[in-house]
């Protein structure tokens, strides 16, 4: 049975839900920016791992959360730079480059992280926000979270506004919809794509750091458990909109919280493995449901030039 719905339990579950959405949300937001500029980055899984290890290592070495997060963002940015170099610079197949990056992330972190396995490290505890944390359920859920979570929650509306209402957003969208027209209008398309891909990498790195510093503190191989891929799926069914991605990530978090609730109550109404498989099955189901509808809404869909190589001389 589900746990008794008293206020304490609901607050706890809410907190878990929001917390669990953080890594996926950060990765998805970064991916939205990259894809809106025209670059498909399938290497999120690898970037999460690289960010997780870099953040954890830096945190262990310096004990400073700021340094740890910066290191993670830097690791993600460098990975994004590699991907951008191959795809935007060399015109390599974007899917292949992303897959290579996934392998690289798993490989490098496995090799470099060997000595950190099981080591204790810096833990980013939740930071309650003064008055707001006292609010019954919402206080725990929204205002008693670690820093990266606040960052993710704030970034979603910020990115939505930037993409839709600023000149920078216009330039990014132009690169993703019609790179040659943007180029003709004087937009430095390749630079924009490099920048957006690196930004996406930075956010993914931060998401990874959240995993190793807050969510399941410590380093172990395969820490991200497919959240990078879930984030990519989320970008699609958020229809490349940051606010919808926020909603999707929170739903994902709710799913994790529900898993947690059902497992703690030793519920036997569904085999454990199906519960654990839900985070991977549900995105597929959602994708299947979203697609027929989205074709009717003509202006919402992948950026028209997504995945296509752009060369200034045509």
């Amino acid at each position, binding site marked *: 049975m589900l746990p008794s719905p008293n206020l304490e339990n609901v607050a706890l579950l809410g907190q878990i839900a929001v917390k669990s959405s953080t890594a996926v949300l950060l990765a998805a937001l970064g991916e939205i920016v990259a894809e809106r500029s025209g670059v498909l980055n*399938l290497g999120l899984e690898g970037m999460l791992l690289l960010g997780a290890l870099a953040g954890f290592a830096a945190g262990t070495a310096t004990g400073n959360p700021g340094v740890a997060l910066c290191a993670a963002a830097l690791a993600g940015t460098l990975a994004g730079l*590699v991907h951008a170099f*191959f795809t935007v610079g*060399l*015109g*390599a*197949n974007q*899917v*292949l*480059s992303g*897959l*290579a*990056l996934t*392998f*690289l992330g*798993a*490989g*490098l*972190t*496995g*090799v*470099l992280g*060997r000595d950190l396995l099981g080591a204790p490290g810096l833990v980013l505890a939740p930071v309650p926000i003064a008055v707001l944390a006292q609010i019954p359920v919402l206080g725990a859920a929204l205002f008693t979270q670690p820093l990266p979570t606040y960052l993710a929650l704030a970034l979603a509306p910020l990115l939505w506004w930037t993409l839709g209402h600023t000149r920078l957003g216009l330039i990014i969208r132009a690169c993703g919809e019609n790179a040659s027209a943007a180029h003709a209008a004087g937009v430095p398309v390749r630079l924009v794509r490099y920048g957006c891909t690196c930004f996406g990498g930075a956010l993914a790195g931060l998401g990874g750091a959240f995993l190793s510093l807050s969510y399941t503190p410590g380093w172990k*191989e395969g820490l991200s*458990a*497919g959240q990078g*891929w*879930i984030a*990519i*799926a989320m970008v*699609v069914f958020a229809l490349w909109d940051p606010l919808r991605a926020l909603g999707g990530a929170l739903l994902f978090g709710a799913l994790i919280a529900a898993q947690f609730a059902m497992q703690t109550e030793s519920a036997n109404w569904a*085999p*454990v*493995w199906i519960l*654990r*498989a839900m985070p*991977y*099955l549900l*995105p*597929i189901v959602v*994708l*299947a449901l979203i*697609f*027929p509808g989205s*074709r009717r809404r003509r202006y919402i869909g992948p950026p028209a030039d997504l995945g296509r190589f752009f060369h200034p001389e045509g």
Partner: protein
Amino acid sequence: MISLRLAIESRDSSPLMRAVLSVLLALVAAGFLGSLAFALAGGEVSATWRALIKGALGSGYSLSEILLKAAPLTLTGLAVALCRHLNLWNIGAEGQFVFGALSACAVGLSMPPGWPAYLGLPLALAAAIAGGAAYSLGPALLKARLGVSEILSTLLLNYVALLFMEHLYFGPWRDPLGMGFPGTAELPQAVWLPALFGSRVHWGLPLALGLSGAVWLLLARTRWGFSARVLGLSPQAAAYAGFSSVSLTVTAMCLSGALAGLAGAGELLGVQHRLQDGLASGLGFTGIIVAFLARQNPLAVPLAALFLGGLLVGADQLQTELRLPGAVIATLQAALLFGFMLGEFLAGKRLRLKISASGNDHAS
């Protein structure tokens, strides 16, 4: 004033040039990045390379290990390459591999004792083919009819398959006499893949080789193969010609899943003989590397599979002998892909020294 400029210009490259350069550079890059990884892991670089090569080629045992790895790698490589010809990405070979093995295992576990091998083995293999195909049917239909990205659907299903497999050999299929080790009982001999002439290598290898020829024939010489290639090169042209993209996509992905499922059955019935942890071990993902090194040519897939097999076996040696983490393999695999992409790029370029007088210089 004369100005010099080094220009990188495009050129039409011959397919052979592209093949050679991309594979060559893949190897060079793997060498570089591998050395870097070895260094980072704390090993001595050249000694590590020597250990790798010795591990792969040093003994009869390791050579037969390479052949044993080459069989499933050929099949998963074929699975990926087949889909690539239709511009589809089958990243789910790992999951289809598992599902094929599960189906074969189900046949083996439920086989009444005393069944002969000539009934048991074909049945198990057929189940594996059906299982692998069935596991890719969902993503195939989603892609063909709804346009859902097969990259995402096949990949996410990998995780599901692994979870399901763990559930089975930890739970309902667990060997009651297993003494605490998770895994099924050993499967009856009736479903074992027989060994080749007394060696450790099983009949899966010639089967895989035969299939690579069959896939080549399918793509190059049949009407289906032609329409599939047209779909991969230009969906609009395929629609124009009246080729059904739905039927082509579903058939291709199911064939691909069947091949991967067969690979799983081969590992289960020819090598491990029981379902346990470590069955999949990344052979589905490595198939992607195999396919690209072979440049999607079914006839070249066995060669690439041999090479990757050698790499895996050598790296196993590194793990046991030099205590290097298994993740080094993933690094080498990433390096192969990056090098491959670099090689493709360079094959299409030419370096030219441009000398121009200033004043009429449009190029600077």
